[in-house]
């Protein structure tokens, strides 16, 4: 199986089949991210399209020194979604629940070969304090600023800043810790 890096190099040379393979690997994950960020299916579909068209145009800018292909793909999608959120100035109030088995929604569980990563991330997040986790997720998924978070949670600005930084540093530590526990 070709690596993500090989595929993105081919995309940079205009290979549509390589983009299709990246879409097959990441389309379901990016769609889940966009549904979480934007709430609405129609808008999530639009941004998913925009994300992979932009990936096609921007593939030559991918720098493996700066991160994995998945980080590159998620970054493109998140930036596009944040632009939409900022334009409409209203964030989803909560993650919408989708009936994954409703054919009307044309959705369904992505065929997930290996849920290990998802479980590891969920476990690492579960080790953060609930408050730190909420701040980190609201900042990441919905782009709330420090001052917006301070207002939403009636928390001093300095406290929000401290908690957010701590949350990310701890998330990294817990994720790395999981790797060590796994003996890798």
């Amino acid at each position, binding site marked *: 199986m070709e690596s993500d890096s090989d595929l993105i190099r081919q995309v940079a040379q205009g290979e549509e089949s390589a983009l299709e393979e990246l879409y097959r690997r990441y389309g379901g994950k990016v769609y889940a991210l966009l549904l979480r960020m934007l709430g609405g299916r129609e808008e999530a579909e639009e941004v998913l399209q925009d994300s992979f068209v932009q990936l096609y145009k921007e593939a030559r800018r991918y720098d493996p020194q700066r991160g994995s292909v998945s980080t590159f793909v998620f970054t493109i999608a998140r930036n596009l979604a944040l632009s939409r959120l900022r334009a409409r100035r209203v964030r989803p109030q909560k993650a919408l629940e989708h009936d994954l088995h409703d054919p009307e929604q044309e959705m369904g569980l992505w065929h997930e070969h290996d849920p290990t990563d998802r479980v590891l991330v969920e476990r690492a997040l579960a080790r953060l304090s609930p408050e730190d986790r909420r701040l980190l997720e609201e900042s990441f998924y919905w782009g709330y600023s420090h001052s917006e978070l301070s207002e939403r949670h009636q928390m001093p600005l300095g406290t929000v800043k401290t908690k957010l930084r701590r949350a990310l*540093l701890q998330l990294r530590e817990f994720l790395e810790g999981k790797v060590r526990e796994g003996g890798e």
Partner: protein
Amino acid sequence: MEFRDLLPDYLLGQLDSEEARRLEAQLERSPELQAELNSLRAALFRLPEQLAPITPPPRVWSRIQKRLRGRRLLPWSQIAAVAASLALVFAGIGLYQLQSLRALQAEQAKIARWLAIPEGKWRAIKNAQGEGIGTMIWLEDGSCLIVMKDPAPRDRVYQAWGRKDGQPVSLGIFRGRVYETRYEGFERMGVSLEPPGGSPQPTQPLGSVPVS
């Protein structure tokens, strides 16, 4: 506060533009700081992995394909017209040689890809005598393609330059006729002829075009 402490805020887009600019300048200077940023970014962007993937409707990929083809595959008649126009740009200044273009398959493929982008804009690169020595095609996303009339002489290389605040900034060297780079942030883009390995300043400027 140390720069390192600002990295989480930077990744989450919480810094104002001045703070971000200062941090970015420091990141350019410090590989350790850049490595720390990359490490934190890798952790942050694992967050979406907590979400169970959801199959997008098949129409999404169909629409992506349609948009890619609209971007890449203009009708052949249009591509031929565009190619003919480009030929005229060169032919009109007496320097275009179709044979040499055909000989360079990889370059041709790259040129064709750029020609098929509808929003591409072109400008002839001329020397001090007003003779065309190449063409620059640029897109609104900041990328551009330099197409030179001839490859660099055997013992020399071309070097691409951007001019910012009156100062030349090297954008890399190339031996063939085609070079992809970026123009954003520059007032002019130019090409010079240099010894192998390039030069810190242009020693034999060939021509330039305004881009701002």
